[in-house]
């Protein structure tokens, strides 16, 4: 999933926000007392991290290469429960 945006580098160009198909990112004014997550300016902010489906389109489109997305997909548990059916518990 999306890990972080380097706010020191981000110039708020909006490319990642356009690219994100699930609407994880929003453009916000940060660096103010009520939003002190980075240096002052308009930045892309990870507003809905739980909706990231790790497609990496934001990272590919970032012209400053400041978005980190790892491949550690978090497939929700309901879709991965087959071990308990097994006769022999495999490692």
């Amino acid at each position, binding site marked *: 999933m999306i890990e972080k945006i380097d706010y020191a580098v981000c110039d708020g160009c909006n490319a990642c926000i*356009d690219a994100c*198909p699930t609407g994880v990112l929003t453009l916000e004014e940060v660096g103010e007392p009520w939003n002190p997550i980075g240096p002052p300016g308009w930045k892309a902010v990870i507003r809905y991290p739980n*909706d990231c489906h*790790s497609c990496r389109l934001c990272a*590919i489109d970032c012209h400053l290469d400041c978005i980190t997305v790892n*491949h550690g997909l978090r*497939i929700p548990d*309901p879709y991965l429960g*087959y071990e308990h059916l097994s006769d022999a518990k*495999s490692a």
Partner: protein
Amino acid sequence: MSDYDPVNINVDVLVIGGGLGGCRAALRARELGASVALVEKAQVARAGPMTYVHSQFAPDRLLDGDELTAWVEEFAVGSNYLADQDWTAMFLRDAYFRFRELIDMGVPYARSADGKLKYVKVRGHKIGTTLGADGRACMEVMRKAMKRARVRLFEKVASLDLLTLDGLHPTQEGVCGAVGVHVQTGVPHVFRAKAVLLCTGPFYPRMHYAFADHIPGDGHRMAYRAGAELAGMEFGQFAAWSYFNKKFFTPGQAKIQGIGAHFKNSLGERFMSGYDPIWGEQTGLIQMARGIITENIEGRGPCYVDMRHVPAADIEMLYQVAPTVGRAFKEFGVDPSRDTLTVNPMMVLASNSSSGLRIGLDGETNVPGLYAAGACTCLPHMMAGISGSAISSASLVTGYRAAGAMAARAATIGRLPRNTRQVDDAISRFYAPRQKFRLTRPADAHLEIGRVTGEATFALFKNAPRIQHVREELARIEADLLPKMYAPDLHELVKAHDARTYLEVCKLVTSAMLERTESRAELFRADYPFRDNDNWLKWVMLSAPGEDLAAPPRVTHWDLPFERWPIKPPRGCEPSTYGMPERFREARSA
């Protein structure tokens, strides 16, 4: 209700969905002189499975005669004989021309060192040829072409419902547009159009799988409400096996199978030929997943994929056409020439590219004015098929043909109604979760649907009681949970809409699963563990029963006309190859 006045758009042709088929249709309709709007929930070239396409089924020559029949046979056998053979023959001939056009438009297909197009082998095809392509690059080309052709592009606008000529759902007279809402601003968009093309792709749950989370089946739901027939819904079971080392997933599975990877169990046996004698390790995703799960259940797990014998050039090609695979391997320190990777499957209620609108040769549905292309159709050439690469190709072919039919229809239609009530209803429904009671987050409702439909014994060993149980659970979620969804902002409103859409599609899938009393392709029924060619060489179609859309769907059948088709199926019953421990046969849950 929305706080904004709607944006009104009047066009000849409305295309819903900005994948390959939608874009090709929009371009073709412009060529024919129609005014065109294309509405996309995300952004063209940044949305949906097309972004992850890495190979496209593309005949390398114009097919005819015996050769054409041989290629049709490949699809017919791969589809367990459910393919519409007329449609397949049309598809195979048209696809040649469509890909010549794409090549001329400058889509960067994989080429060998001397500059020649490189046709590669992928899952599902032994004689059929496939071009290696980066789907995202392909869509960039289409997007530029659409801008040049002055297609009116509406991005970040989610379509909510279709408008009809008689103002009714389901409609008797036909479809005349759609209503949508901008996902960032909330502004309603009302499209009035003389013909509508659905190109909304497959349906997936919210499973955080690369392209899945924003395609819950919008087109399926809208079409069903409008009265269109959906075919092959019983095969709505998707699987993926590429959960590597229990750490990471990658798309690109067809390509990994295509370069000749070996799949082995803990005893070192290559087990897939035992499950699919014809295709072996080139078989479909669901067959792969079932095979792996059965090995695990019977104590021969964990299974792993072995690419150590694959030539370096082929691995290089894999990375080139499926860059995600290369990046993921690098991130997790995997070197396929040295390491093996354990594989784990998952199975979800989702489109495996053979569940959707029933279409004819020109993408037409049974509803006048409504056309469909791509993965939101039943893909008549591979009903329950195993070819991953022929999905985008079919979308391209149908989109192009549908554009011709739509432009012709547009010339015959006069003024369109205003449909104020339908617009208000759709917008009100969308904004309904903006309520006071803060009870359920849309994501939790969606996960609850996933918990019910992803339940392991249901996914693997379906029988009538288990399917019925899932239907009851879905009804419970619809009655108890969905009305309590709370969405504090637009983003969450969209997610709430997605959850409702996916639930309604799941209800259709389970209805069709109950109907088909045999095991074929993606559908395995523990109470009917055999393929029954005497009784079930037919399609199961669902359509809205009447004014009450919540009632169970009307079910009809289409007996396939093999007497006039070249490829004849074997007769009789054939037991399924999947093992099933006795304890799962009867009980509802283990």
